[in-house]
């Protein structure tokens, strides 16, 4: 009983630490409650959106062929991949690298209960992801005439609860490996980046493979189960249970997911103290010789500090900068595969589809630039270090300026690479490319300043690690999704204006709107933003 009470208390703390957003734990405030709920709502919304989109896409193709059940083979894969992706770094940072380890390990709680509580917090996050992917898929299944009714819904709920354990196990294992690698590397920042890069490359490869599968899904739907033999047994069992009501499926799934979970918790829990001590123990070298000390300007120092934080935190870089990486990759890929790209455009043109290439390219670049939520996490990441900036004899405007400028120094070259590469591949006129770059630059400016404002309105200065700020804070969510929404809204504006103003004119007007937005945001930053910063 005592163990259960301890477990519940620890789980509650872990969940609060993961989801609480605000400027002070323990303080009740409307903003904090709103932020916590908003984080969960946005996560759920994103999963439900992806699920709804893909479920309808798959179901509309599968239903006529009588292969609707395949939906419960594919969507659980999406749930597990997304769940693992969402919780992998949390497992590394919170389970194996928690800054509260000294405090928690000193408590009269068994390491097994502690490990179980931390793993259970990850499980609950995965349950949210899995539920908001599988339940909409179930709805779509029934919408397209799938059989099962209420029974199917109940089986889906039970299956969801069990399946959510799988990404938790994968995240725990992956998180441990990442934490171990990080602790062993001498030049941890550079080599850790490589590890994260490899992880993302793997995710992309899987995504491309899935896309290839979608292309001829209906043709191969009947034989798809054979393709899942071996690696995909959990998904086959899930399908058997949800569609056929086979208890063996549910029991098998429990065996495959829950037993490794308990094994991992027992295994890690048994040596938890030794593991986290080994992972976090680092000694300072004592062979430094003071020779040359560099000197620079105040602005350069602030900018270098922003760069240092960004490039030394893989969590920050890969979450806030993933859109920028995509831009560079897209620019290079466009040049490499320019013949294929030009061929596709020619085929569309032959079929009578005239794509507005420059506005389309501009919109896509803006969409990716919108995901770069660097400034919208930068104030929160100051966290406990904020006193250093507040104590310094530096105008607040310079601090803001360094944060905005750093985002622009990354965003603009990445956008330019994408525009230049794709423009070259599509043989777009230089004048149009220049206009596109102007619009993207104005958009990037607006996004950077608005992101900083959002972070000043929703700061999270008490996070235990970067993961909580970058992945789970309200400001980073609003920053990235708000940026994407702004890009979509600009697309709508271009669509409305293209008739009266012409395509290029409409694009220029969109750029003007962005520039105006950036100026308004700058004014707000200098007034409201400054007040908020001083009050932090």
């Amino acid at each position, binding site marked *: 009983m005592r163990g259960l009470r301890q477990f519940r208390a620890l789980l509650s703390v872990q969940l609060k630490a993961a989801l609480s957003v605000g400027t002070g734990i323990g*303080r009740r405030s409307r903003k904090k409650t709103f932020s916590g709920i908003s984080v969960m709502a946005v996560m759920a919304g994103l999963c439900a959106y992806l699920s709804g989109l893909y479920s309808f896409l798959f179901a509309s193709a599968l239903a006529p062929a009588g292969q609707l059940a395949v939906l419960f083979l594919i969507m659980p894969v999406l749930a597990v991949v997304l769940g693992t992706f969402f919780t992998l770094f949390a497992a590394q940072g919170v389970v194996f690298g928690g800054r509260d380890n000294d405090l928690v390990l000193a408590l009269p709680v068994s390491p097994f209960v502690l490990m179980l509580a931390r793993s259970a917090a990850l499980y609950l996050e995965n349950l949210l992801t899995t539920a908001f992917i599988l339940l909409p898929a179930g709805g779509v299944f029934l919408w397209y005439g799938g059989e099962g009714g209420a029974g199917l819904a109940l089986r889906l709920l039970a299956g969801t609860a069990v399946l959510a354990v799988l990404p938790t196990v994968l995240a725990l294992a992956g998180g441990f490996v990442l934490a171990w690698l990080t602790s062993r590397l001498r030049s941890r*920042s550079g080599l850790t980046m490589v590890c994260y890069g490899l992880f993302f490359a793997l995710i992309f490869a899987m995504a491309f493979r899935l896309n290839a599968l979608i292309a001829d899904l209906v043709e191969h739907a009947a034989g798809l189960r054979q393709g899942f033999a071996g690696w995909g047994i959990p998904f086959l069992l899930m399908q058997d249970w949800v569609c056929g009501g086979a208890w063996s499926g549910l029991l098998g799934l429990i065996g495959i997911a829950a037993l490794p979970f308990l094994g991992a918790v027992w295994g890690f829990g048994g040596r938890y103290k030794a593991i986290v001590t080994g992972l976090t123990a*680092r*000694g*300072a*070298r*004592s*062979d*430094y*010789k*003071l020779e*040359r*000390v*560099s*000197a*620079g*300007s*105040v602005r*350069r*120092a*602030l900018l*270098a*500090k922003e760069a*240092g*934080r960004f490039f*030394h*935190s893989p969590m920050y870089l890969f979450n806030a900068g993933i859109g920028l990486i995509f831009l560079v990759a897209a620019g290079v890929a466009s040049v490499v595969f320019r013949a294929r790209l030009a061929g596709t455009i020619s085929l569309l043109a032959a079929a009578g589809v005239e794509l507005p290439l420059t506005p389309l390219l501009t919109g896509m670049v803006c969409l990716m630039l919108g995901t770069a939520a660097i400034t919208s996490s930068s104030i929160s990441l100051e966290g*406990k*270090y904020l*006193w*250093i900036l*507040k*104590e*310094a*004899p*530096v*105008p607040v405007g310079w601090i803001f300026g360094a944060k905005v400028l750093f985002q622009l120094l990354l965003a603009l070259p990445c956008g330019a690479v994408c525009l230049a590469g794709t423009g070259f591949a599509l043989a777009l006129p230089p004048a149009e490319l220049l206009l596109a770059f102007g619009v993207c630059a104005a958009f990037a400016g607006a996004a950077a300043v608005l992101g900083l404002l959002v972070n000043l309105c929703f700061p999270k200065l008490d996070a235990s690690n970067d993961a909580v700020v970058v992945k789970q804070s309200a400001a980073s969510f609003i920053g990235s999704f708000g940026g994407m929404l702004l890009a979509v809204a600009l697309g709508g504006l271009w669509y409305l204006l293209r008739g009266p103003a012409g395509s290029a004119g409409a694009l220029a007007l969109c750029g003007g709107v962005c520039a105006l937005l950036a100026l308004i945001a700058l004014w707000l930053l200098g007034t409201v933003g400054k007040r908020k910063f*001083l*009050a932090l």
Partner: protein
Amino acid sequence: MLHIEDFSKTYPGGKRAVDGLSLHVPAGAIFGFIGHNGAGKTTTLRAAAGVMDFSQGTISIDGHDIQKEPIAAKRVTAFLPDNPDLYDFLTGIRYLTFIADLYEIPGGERKARIARYADAFRLTGNLGSPIGSYSHGMKQKLALISALIRAPRLLILDEPFVGLDPEASHLLKEFLSELCQAGGAVFFSTHVLEVAERLCHRIAIIQNGKLVKEGPTAELVGDSTLEDVFLGLGGEGR
């Protein structure tokens, strides 16, 4: 050097941390600020350093109002919080260079100052390592070095002796005295009353946000000890 006039601070939620505090730290003085936990010491120090916003009262450093002329006031000040968190992602030397850049310390001079204080605190060999790998005491020493290399006119320290080894504590006392002899001033809080009694020229005692005693150490203590004086105040004002 430091003038605090009728300073009050009320936190959101209504807690009045400091109530009508007036203090004057003259140039050349080491000024000890003592009180129970939650008495308002840290709030006062943070406000004086320009780290925390406030709406009642005025605080000026070397003639510069911390709210109206924050840059000028901060340029002659160095502040050290009770638990100085420093950028984990920087090495010790990068952090010192960053601070030197913010305070625009000329290149040649900064090397001499860093060498002097880092050697004294026996930290030079560790300056190439990331701050994340430092122990609490090493971080405390690095923070002190970063404060001292600015050659401040006013040094504001919150519990500066916590975490320091005896040798470093002794060195710090020497540096504080040196700073005061050069015309600067030190305003620091501490719970170590013996240190305050031996080191400080003046002492102020704050209870429940209000100043209850202030004056030259010898006058305040008299034939008794600072501990007796402090304990003698008992729950007065609490």
